[in-house]
């Protein structure tokens, strides 16, 4: 297989690994906790 095909494959595998680690640590919950409240800094009043 050509290197140019292997690189995206390796990147996808790395992405799956990172996602799995993040899911195992409950990180989607942290994202939701931040996103479910108005981020005052983001809108410029914090």
């Amino acid at each position, binding site marked *: 297989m050509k*290197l*140019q095909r292997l*690189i*995206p494959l390796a*990147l*996808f595998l*790395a*992405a*799956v*690994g*990172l*996602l*799995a*680690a*993040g*899911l195992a*640590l409950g*990180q*989607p*919950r*942290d*994202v*939701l906790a*931040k*996103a*479910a*409240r*108005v*981020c*005052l*800094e*983001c*809108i*410029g*009043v*914090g």
Partner: protein
Amino acid sequence: MDNKLRGRVQFVAALVQNADLRGFFTGRIDQGAQKAVCVPGLNCYSCPGALMSCPIGSLQAFLSARPVKVPYYVAGLLLFFGALLGRAVCGFLCPFGWIQELLHKIPFPRKKLGTFPGDRLLRRLKYLVLAGLVVLVPMLLTDWTPAFCKYLCPAGTLEGGVPLVLLHGERLHLEVGPLFFWKLFILVAVVLSGMAIYRPFCKYLCPLGALYAPFNRVALYRMRLSEDRCVACGKCARVCPMQVDPSKTPNSGECIRCGVCVGACPTKALRLGVREKQGQGIRDKGQGIRDKGQGIRD
């Protein structure tokens, strides 16, 4: 894909990401479980219509936690989007990129600005924004975080700040101070420059653009140049709104995969897609054979 169709994809993408239209009337932001997922482009999660989360805001939230949390989940999502699409995310899926494209269509000023002295240098600024405001400041200076959102992001002002403060400021007890006016100033600067320059925020400041840029060389969706078809007429470089010369650097980190050059090529030497065509003398310069630096023509 022609540019009209791309415009439709951009419209649908912006709408889908901000489909909770009730939020604009109630001033309440969505709290559904789907907000645990980050979108690929820049879309503020404090936009009253936002259904999902902003990857750059989420990244800063992890890095500014004490002790610092390694953002495996957000990094995994970004790596996935990057490996699949590279900066096609900017060209197709980013609502703030689309808004800038619409601004550029306003026929004022009549003469639009392409490249100019210092353009090449300015484009490096986005890498500094990514390294400084998105990564280092949140890790080192808690009081300043989320630094990119707080001090720079015009998407947050436009999508979150303006509607929430103007429509529901009193009810939500949102007190406007110098920071809001600073952010408003940045937004106005982006809007005005966006009428003269194509996607100025994407070119010079966007940390997501900086993050996806290196993926252009290796992403599944990329550009291929068929060298035995190319007659070096230079049309592709002349029409490129990002000032890339795709006949020399088809996978430049500045290319947002808009496809304008592909449509302009008289010999069909350029191709955007996932699959490689066999046996046509195609040189995929994805490994940077001649793609030096950002591949911008001066």
